């Protein structure tokens, strides 16, 4: 392993959006074992420092590749597109859909059967998220970087929605 490798190369995985989660987990564990700082406790301080750096890099790479939004952002970065965090979007149709979904989430709290409404919303949100993940994968593979960036924006909104749904699921359980 070299520190200059990109996150996909670290795990010897193809540089693309679709990822074999099982294989990633397996290789992550193997690398973790190989470079664990405990194994370098009796080595030179240089080797100890390197093992620390490797471990940090391996963890960062794994976190990035496991997360659908971080992975998409990272792939765009590899393709030379830096995503500006302050960028706003004016895609009215998509934003309208988001507004309606957030309104529904708000109404779940007061709904007669909260759990059923929330389950339905959760399923819909997940389906939309999967749809946009597929869209991101194919636009990136086609090197349509503008489209891919728009799709990343959608993934970000949908990820936020899913986090809010999960939060409400927890609240309802309490």
């Amino acid at each position: 392993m070299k520190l200059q490798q990109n996150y996909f190369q670290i795990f010897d995985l193809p540089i693309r959006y679709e990822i074999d989660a099982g294989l990633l987990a397996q290789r992550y564990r193997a690398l973790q074992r190989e470079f664990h700082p405990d194994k370098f406790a009796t080595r030179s301080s240089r080797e100890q420092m390197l093992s620390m750096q490797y471990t940090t890099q391996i963890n960062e790479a794994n976190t990035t590749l496991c997360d659908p939004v971080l992975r998409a952002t990272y792939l765009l970065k590899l393709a030379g597109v830096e995503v500006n965090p302050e960028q706003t979007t004016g895609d009215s149709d998509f934003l309208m859909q988001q507004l309606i979904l957030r309104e529904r989430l708000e109404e779940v709290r007061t709904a007669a059967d909260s759990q059923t409404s929330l389950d339905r919303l959760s399923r819909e949100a997940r389906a939309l998220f999967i749809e946009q993940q597929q869209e991101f994968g194919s636009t990136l593979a086609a090197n349509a970087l503008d489209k891919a960036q728009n799709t990343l924006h959608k993934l970000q909104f949908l990820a936020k929605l899913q986090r809010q749904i999960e939060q409400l699921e927890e609240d309802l359980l309490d």
Partner: protein
Amino acid sequence: MAYSDKVIDHYEHPRNVGRLDDKSADVGTGMVGAPACGDVMRLQIQVDAEGVIEDAKFKTYGCGSAIASSSLLTEWVKGKTLDEAVAIKNTHIAEELALPPVKIHCSVLAEDAIKAAVRDIREKRGE
């Protein structure tokens, strides 16, 4: 992170929350979103024949700063002409609400929303 008193006031008592009929010829609608934080904002203005904003409504799903920015903006634009409304800068909003640097983007969102709403009504009127 500490919110300023003005942000808390607008967050707890948001002005002009609601919706106007976006099909109406006198209503301009601006929809904007900030992907990085997942915030969504809808800002609507009702404009008279002279191009003066009579009413404004908003709905924002986001953090306290985003809600306060849009709430303040709806107060500011009432009675203004469209030209005056698009001249409002996010820095004015950020200054008024004393937004910390990490929340400046919330005021950018509000500025983009009023610009989009004005663009919408101008398109409807063929200007």
